[in-house]
């Protein structure tokens, strides 16, 4: 039995899932294919519907 979780993909979905699990005290391995996490959202200038700056 292992109490750790693997998350595949470090876009906004994978980052949020990792943070939620980590905050519950669960150890998370976050595997990202590219050199850095962030996914598509890191490429966006701002996001709708608030026009807040993306990450």
């Amino acid at each position, binding site marked *: *039995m*292992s*109490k*750790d*979780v*693997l*998350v*595949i*993909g*470090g*876009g*906004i*979905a*994978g*980052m*949020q*899932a*990792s*943070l*939620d*699990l*980590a*905050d*519950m*005290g*669960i*150890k*998370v*391995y*976050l*595997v*990202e*294919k*590219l*050199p*850095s*996490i*962030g*996914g*598509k*959202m*890191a*490429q*966006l*200038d*701002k*996001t*709708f*519907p*608030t*026009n807040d700056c993306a*990450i």
Partner: protein
Amino acid sequence: MLDVGRHPNIELLAYSEVEGLKGTAGEFTITVRKKTRYVEEDKCTGCGACAEKCPTVVPDAFNEGLGERKAIYSYFAQGIPSTHTIDADHCRQLNGKKCGICAKTCQADAINFDKKDQVIELDVGAVIIAAGYDVFDPSQIPEYHYTEIPNVVTAIEFERLLSASGPTEGHLDRPSDRAVLKEIASLEKQAKKSQKTLARFEEKYNESSASFYDKFQGGQYEGDEDRQKWADKYAAHLAIVEPLESLQKKAEGFTVARRLAFIQCVGSRDFRFYPFCSGYCCMHSIKEAIIAHEHEPETASVIFGMDIRAVGKGFEEYKIRGGNDSNVSYVRGRVAEISAGPDDNPVVTFEDTRERKVKNQAFDLVVLATACAPIKGMAALAETLGVALDPYGFIKTSPLSPVDTETPGIFVCGCAESPMDVPESVAQASSAAERAAEVVFQPEMKEEKAVA
């Protein structure tokens, strides 16, 4: 992003891929390949000195090829981790040529050309797939001429043009104009070099090249080898300067793009490609038009779509605000063709369904709202993990268990499941985290989910 990088419970394995999965819910063994960056992660400080000195220039994927980076690079400036990576396909040293400049530059002694991939095993109780989506490749739609007409760009390329940290620092410089400016820069460099050579002759013979050349062409100096060389160099110089001057004249008229067209459902709701609606593209076109107008108040945008789908909290209001405050108009209809027009202005051919007329309209720049496509590696990833896909190639789920794959203990969230925007991706992510936590906290519950 920062929080993920520094959370004590998160071990970040970037530049890595899952290669194998064994076992069942609660007891998975995962094989992960940590690809070599040829840079020691614990030594690299992310200072960027190496990239500054690296002589190899490569199109920058983060900027959708609109900018350039070096063969040693950080994926983007604020990227986490900030460890640099050598692109083995382009690095000179790794392709049998002499270089190693980065290794000589690096103060931290972090470069290691012999570093190999590392394969590790992890024991986990649950897995969450959050591998996202790919932008649909619009070159598959011949009538939009995406590859042939430079001022037809995808919405994600347009995001990079809008971004202050992007290749144009947020100015909507058109790709065709940028290509001319690049050509000018390269010709100027060549002209400067040839001017230097000419200056040596001019000094030696105390005469301007132009006046010498007249005489030379008149037949003087026949048989004078040195002057023959001068004449050849001058002719070559003219062959650089003449096109340079005409391009410089052309560039005087360049302005940022102000007349923008946004074409909806490029690859979505199209039975040749994806019959589904990608959900977020109507909204991102409105957003991009609003931001472009913020940058440049004279901007006028036309959004061409079958209908505008603004189905989220605050979305309809956002759409109306775009129309009222940001000079955005909405035209109902599908665009039949985009063609090349004079001055590199693409021409959009569409049916105005209100007037029942086919019209042509020229724009400075056309933006394609491309479909949300499953990632290229999805079939392979699904096979490795033993999960089922839906007919389009997204992870298969069911309406009452939207984050459960068909394999117990493996969950999905975000665009790996289906097209969705950021708020929905985040909601699904929290939901998938919850489901995964149930498995690791309460193993007896792992097999069956209670469905309302």
